[in-house]
């Protein structure tokens, strides 16, 4: 009698990509809205972006149940922080908390690939990038998820990041303006969509039968969140369908 093997996996990959770019006085965080499993699409309208604090936004892809649990956990911790300290958590503080939270489950990880974006205490943009078990690094820009291998080299090329090996360490925060950075993000997703089946943004279409309003999109979207001194802004964009 051979030993029983588990015939179910506690993990699943629900796909998608996330990107964040830090600027001198803004931060752009973006993710697609497709949720998939295997070759199936579960839903085309699911947000991977979560506002953790006034100046701190997280985008995560990977196993959706773990991502949601992580978001809820961090939101709860932030609430406690606010009760205890009577102020919002800063982005670097949240960055450390996220790292610790991920490592806490080092031996049954949150299958969640995160980018944290926001403004530091001086109002300058900051981006933190993570792996599933909490190793993190402050960077000028990053991408995670199924399209990250396609997106990251493109960002490296366009944002001309200084080598992380240089001493003294050079800041990789981009000198691009906010509209230029948003445009870059849109371009990056357009390219990733061409080649990554799990990342997808689709143009809405109208059929003779339907009377869609522009809100009821028959496809996937790109969700972009922009954080700056005036607050938080959200933009949506559609790309080619298929």
């Amino acid at each position, binding site marked *: 009698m051979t*030993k029983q093997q588990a015939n*179910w996996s*506690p993990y*699943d990959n629900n796909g998608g990509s996330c990107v964040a770019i830090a600027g001198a006085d803004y931060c752009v965080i973006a993710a697609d809205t497709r949720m998939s499993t295997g070759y*199936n699409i579960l839903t085309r309208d699911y947000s991977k972006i979560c506002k953790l604090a006034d100046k701190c936004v997280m985008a995560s892809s990977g196993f959706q149940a773990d991502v949601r649990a992580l978001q809820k956990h961090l939101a709860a911790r932030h609430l406690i922080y606010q009760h205890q300290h009577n102020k919002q958590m800063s982005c670097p503080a949240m960055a450390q908390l996220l790292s610790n939270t991920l490592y806490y489950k080092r031996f049954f990880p949150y299958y969640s690939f995160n980018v944290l974006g926001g403004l530091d205490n001086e109002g300058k943009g900051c981006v933190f990038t993570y792996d599933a078990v909490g190793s993190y690094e402050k960077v000028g820009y990053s991408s995670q998820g199924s399209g990250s291998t396609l997106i990251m080299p493109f960002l490296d090329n366009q944002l001309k990041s200084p080598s992380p090996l240089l001493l003294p360490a050079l800041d990789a925060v981009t000198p691009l303006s906010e509209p230029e950075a948003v445009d870059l993000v849109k371009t990056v997703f357009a390219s990733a969509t061409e080649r990554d089946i799990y990342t997808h943004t689709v143009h809405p279409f109208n059929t003779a039968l339907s009377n869609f309003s522009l809100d009821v999109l028959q496809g996937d979207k790109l969700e972009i969140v922009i954080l700056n001194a005036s607050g938080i802004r959200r933009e949506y964009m559609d790309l080619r369908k298929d």
Partner: protein
Amino acid sequence: MNLMDSSHSNPMSLCSQADSQRTLYPYVTGTSVIGVKYKDGILMAADMGGSYGSTLRYKSVERMKPIGKHSLLGASGEISDFQEILHYLDELILYDNMWDDGNSLGPKEVHSYLTRVMYNRRNKFNPLWNSLVLGGVKNGQKYLGTVSMIGVHFEDNHVATGFGNHLARPILRDEWHEDLSFEDGVKLLEKCMRVLLYRDRSAVNKLQIAKITEEGVTISQPYSLKTFWGFSAFQNPTVGAEGSW
């Protein structure tokens, strides 16, 4: 935590005694559930079969149940786990009613509760082997969501479990639209259920359609769909393959 640690690092501890305490595979299962939002609320459909592997053991299983005043739950997967979930929800609704404060749990809240329960069981490596569809209306707001056995959840205008994801959702993506009438909604669901009946081997031709609106829940009497088998290819199936029988 200990059980999980050892199950990862030392597989030998995953044997007999420990295993009899956890779900390994489902025994009596229900197949697809489909749900759609329509003009007045939610419509849901599920057949009444309870399969024991490849045997059709039970033919009158109600896989959709009302929850509280505002919700309807449909389940596929292990029937005994569904009954366990109904038991948990009974208690949840009871405690909610005992507040006696005029407030009641809406579909969003029930869905959130179910999500947490399913995810928690997955964390303990002892899942409730179900895919759930939760629909409801409260204060004019329609809600339709789904949770899987590992805790993956989302809400949408149309959802399905199991084979429904493969066969019904493409039809729904093409033909669903905002503000479906009741008749159109039922026709759409029946179209999906018919395809499932033809193509899902665990489907049975005895189904119920449930509707939930602001007024409440109505679950139809069981009925069957008309099917067509009179294809010429079925008359002489071996005509193209000489020597076959």
